């Protein structure tokens, strides 16, 4: 039973099966809307289907239990396979085949045989020196009138596949560490404001940082054709009232503070606390001023105090508006001034009768006009803390090394036989390799050339 489980866990069928299942599951995840899309597209689906999908965690598939189980099975399969096969590879790495084999020398092509007039001992000496220089684990065996040599190269190539498998396990381990110990969060921060609370990634939970971040300024630069060129937040990071770091944050240039990386992720605008207002009387041009929220200004003629009480970006879906308060000896009043009042009046001609508080000329003889409200940008910051990154990075680096070993090296073995009679010697070379017949041929030709020049 135990054996059956083990052989199942180490089978190629399981590996390929898992590859296919993970590939198909991943494919589904790119077709079924995932939760972080905001759920907008889910609304078009049949409610019964949504229930089924929900119970299978298909809307957050890549973090679902069954997807994690699949990944776990793959890791297990990888581990068991590697452990299973390793002893064989180790043997292949360590074992030196018998030197005086005749089989490799059968059917040897003539260009793998060299003949020389030199003394045999001299030839043997030269061959041995050359082999020792070129190959590893060179062995020699002398028989009555024949000397055998063995040398090899690239025996480490048996381990390439383990390097690859180990590096994949390292990457998975790094990802697990990151998801357990790290976090992802976001915060929208208006210009001039600071915060030390952020929203955690998928769970809509609030997290407190042990320092505060302040957005001093957010700006966008454009190219001549109107495409965005740069999103930039000037941030200050504060701890106990002291600035611990200050600098710009740009897309592609995250900033790390106390082990937490900050990214420029998005932006938006909210109304600021200033409005550009024109106050006029009758047909005169009037005066245009920038009025601050809650600041008061004086209208001498009527001895009235004017205040902006509220600034709204989009009041009752009718666009920007400010709430004006008037205090004068005659009367006190409050009314709204819309930026788009002309357009609104076209839609509702008797607006001022119905809602006198929407009349910008309510405080006669003055007429208020809202030109613009100040917009304040907020910057959308993404935060991440991932202690697994360096592990994932080293796994990725290792996998490339594993590929180079596996695909570009091979275990090449060489047998050299020196025999012959008095005054005449013969060198025969036989070679074999695990893969890469082309590389073996090249290496053997090199060896033949060097042998030729030594004798």
């Amino acid at each position, binding site marked *: 039973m135990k054996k059956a489980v083990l052989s199942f866990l180490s089978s*190629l069928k399981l590996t390929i099966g898992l*590859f296919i299942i993970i590939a198909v599951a*991943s494919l589904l995840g790119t077709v079924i809307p995932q939760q972080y899309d905001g759920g907008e597209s889910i609304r078009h689906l049949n409610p019964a289907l949504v229930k089924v999908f929900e119970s299978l965690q298909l809307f957050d598939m890549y973090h679902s239990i069954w997807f994690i189980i699949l990944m776990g099975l793959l890791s297990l399969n990888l581990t068991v396979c590697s452990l299973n096969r390793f002893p064989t590879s180790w043997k292949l790495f360590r074992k030196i085949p018998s030197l005086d084999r005749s089989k490799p020398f059968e059917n040897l092509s003539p260009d793998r045989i060299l003949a020389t007039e030199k003394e045999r001992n001299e030839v043997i000496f030269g061959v041995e020196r050359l082999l020792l220089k070129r190959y590893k684990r060179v062995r020699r065996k002398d028989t009555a009138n024949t000397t055998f040599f063995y040398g090899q190269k690239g025996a480490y190539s048996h381990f390439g596949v383990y390097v690859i498998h180990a590096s994949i396990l390292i990457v998975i381990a790094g*990802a697990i560490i990151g998801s357990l110990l790290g976090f*992802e969060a976001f915060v929208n921060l208006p210009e001039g404001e600071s915060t030390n609370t952020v929203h955690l990634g998928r769970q809509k939970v609030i997290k407190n940082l042990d320092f505060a971040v302040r957005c001093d300024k957010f700006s966008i630069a454009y*190219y001549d054709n109107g*495409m965005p060129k740069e999103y930039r937040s000037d941030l200050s990071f504060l701890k106990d009232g002291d600035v611990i770091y200050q600098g710009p944050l740009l*897309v592609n240039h995250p900033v790390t503070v106390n082990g937490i990386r900050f990214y420029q992720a998005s932006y938006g605008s909210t109304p600021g606390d200033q409005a550009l207002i024109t106050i006029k009387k009758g047909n005169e041009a009037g005066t245009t001023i920038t009025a601050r929220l809650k600041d008061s200004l004086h209208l001498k003629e009527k001895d009235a105090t004017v205040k902006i009480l509220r600034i709204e970006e989009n009041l009752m879906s009718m666009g920007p508006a400010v709430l004006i308060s008037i205090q004068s000896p005659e009367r006190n009043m409050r009314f709204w001034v819309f930026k788009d009042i002309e357009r609104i009046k076209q839609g509702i001609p008797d607006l001022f009768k119905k809602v006198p508080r929407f009349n910008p000329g309510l405080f006669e003889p003055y007429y208020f006009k809202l030109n613009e409200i100040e917009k304040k940008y907020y910057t959308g910051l993404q935060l991440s803390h991932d202690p697994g990154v360096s592990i994932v990075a080293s796994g990725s680096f290792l996998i*490339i090394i594993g*590929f180079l070993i596996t695909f570009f090296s091979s275990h090449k073995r060489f047998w050299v036989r020196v025999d012959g009679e008095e005054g005449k010697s013969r060198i025969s070379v036989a070679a074999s390799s695990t893969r890469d017949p082309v590389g073996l041929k090249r290496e053997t030709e090199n060896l033949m050339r060097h042998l030729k020049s030594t004798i």
Partner: protein
Amino acid sequence: MIINTTILSWVTFVYFASAIFYIFRMVTGKEFWGPLASFSALVGLIAQTGALILRWVESYKMGIGHAPLSNLYESLIFFAWTIVLLYLIMEWRIKTRNLGAFVIPFAFLSMAYASFSPHVSSRIQPLIPALQSNWLISHVITCFFGYAAFTIACGLGLMYLLKGLEKGGVSRPFLRFLPGRKTLDELSYHSVVIGFIFLTLGIITGSVWAYSAWGSYWSWDPKETWSLITWLVYAAMLHSRFVRGWRGKRMAVMSIIGFVSVLFTYFGVNYLPGLHSYF
């Protein structure tokens, strides 16, 4: 029209001619067409290289300098360039022109799509903030060399299946001029290995970039996910070859399935919502 796009649309025709010559050579069995085919492919490659450099220089003159690897048009052009470059290196190394008829047409199609599709703008555009990264060049180059190697593997797979008709008793003269099935299988395997290494490098450079741009080295964005699917398909292929010793027809079929996955990673993903919306 800017000069580089004019050259590039001419290159499209040169590759078309080259593909036709390779096909003539295969169908007629006359070596006469061979040098003509190779020569036009080489001329096309040189002209295309020149045009790419020109485009790069022009972008600097416009004050928005960046490598010509930043939108669909430029990526299609670069895709064709990598296919022809890899193919010509292969032709030179293995000294046979037999593969051209199944590889150069892909380069032509990519060029034609870039040059003549009304949906593909050939304008040089400035880089949006997300693309302003040193990783752009290494990410795009590694990915597209991977795609090109997989394209060649797919061409070889198709040739293998065609060649297999011979065994089934079909006898066409041009089948005789295809390389032997063992050679095709070996070459296809080598192309897949090259593609697999480059795809892996492409995924790694991509995740390094994502780590500095999006805040996470892997966010299951559709393009990322599809590159993983492609990676799994080829990983399955290599494993069944290494462990089970699968050869021949099955490998040929898998190299075609893998290529479909590559195509989806490249184009299909544009129809899914995600972060990789620039290509």
